[in-house]
């Protein structure tokens, strides 16, 4: 069986060594994002002071906060980015390894005791979006496109996720814009974000 590849981006050398010791069955590479091609890895572990901004990390990252932010806000930020895994700043290496293995299987990992507050956040966000004027007029497919586009996904990302062409995505987006009353994806994102913030 092909060995899975795991990229560890960490400010702390011992962290990478600890992960390497625990992750049998993975080829573990410790490097900065700029030094390697992310596409060659099944999972990226982000363990740095600043949050990852690289959208190529979506759906394959495990975030391990290192600084004194509240774990809950870091968790919500990570999930909003589309990251698939998160562990708290005080998580053990063993829990981090569990999160990595879970994400490598294509599943999501959230610390069990933080799941409730995260789901509450998602419920509140959905309620705010449902209050957006025109949202009821979207077809099922347009709504799927809306959900992805308002979350910041590119046209190519949306096409890949929904198994449709970029031209079809463009067509759906035009219809969504018209029904919602915006002209660009940036406006769509701002509108959805505004609805979320207003609700919060």
């Amino acid at each position, binding site marked *: 069986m092909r060995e899975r590849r795991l990229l560890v981006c960490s400010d702390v050398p011992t962290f990478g060594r600890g992960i390497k010791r625990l992750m049998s069955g993975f080829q573990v590479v410790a490097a900065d994002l700029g030094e390697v091609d992310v596409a060659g890895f099944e999972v990226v572990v982000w363990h740095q002071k600043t949050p990852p901004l690289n959208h190529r990390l979506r759906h394959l990252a495990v975030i391990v906060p290192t600084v004194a932010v509240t774990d809950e806000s870091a968790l919500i930020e990570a*999930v909003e980015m589309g990251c698939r895994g998160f562990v708290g700043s005080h998580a053990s290496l063993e829990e981090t390894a569990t999160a990595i293995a879970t994400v490598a299987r294509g*599943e*999501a990992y*959230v*610390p*069990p*005791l933080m*799941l*409730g*507050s*995260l*789901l*509450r956040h*998602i*419920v509140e966000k*959905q*309620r705010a979006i449902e209050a957006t004027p025109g949202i009821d007029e979207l077809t099922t497919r347009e709504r799927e496109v809306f959900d992805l586009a308002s979350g910041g996904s590119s046209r190519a990302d949306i096409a890949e996720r929904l198994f449709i062409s970029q031209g079809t995505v463009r067509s759906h987006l035009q219809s969504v814009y018209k029904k919602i009353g915006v002209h660009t994806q940036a406006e769509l994102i701002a509108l959805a974000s505004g609805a979320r913030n207003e609700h919060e």
Partner: protein
Amino acid sequence: MSTSDPERAPLPKRKGEVWRESKDEAVAIYEPDHDGLHLLNGSALAIWELSDGSTSIDEMAHAISELTSIDMSDARRDVESALRTLSDLGLIE
């Protein structure tokens, strides 16, 4: 709690005063009506926490589906199963 008709089903609401203490990956919930103490894992605890009397089963399922990328129908089945368990334990109305 009946979930056979989603339109008419009461919104699940966790019951009264509880006492909790984190223990590994589980939380102990005290249910005073029957003097019961129950250990809930993370998933069950999350559904219990969402059961505030104003959140529907569909909203819970949608949130889980969005987070985990599982089908909405599967998420709904999981939520209903968890709610049945919580109801049997006397932890939701």
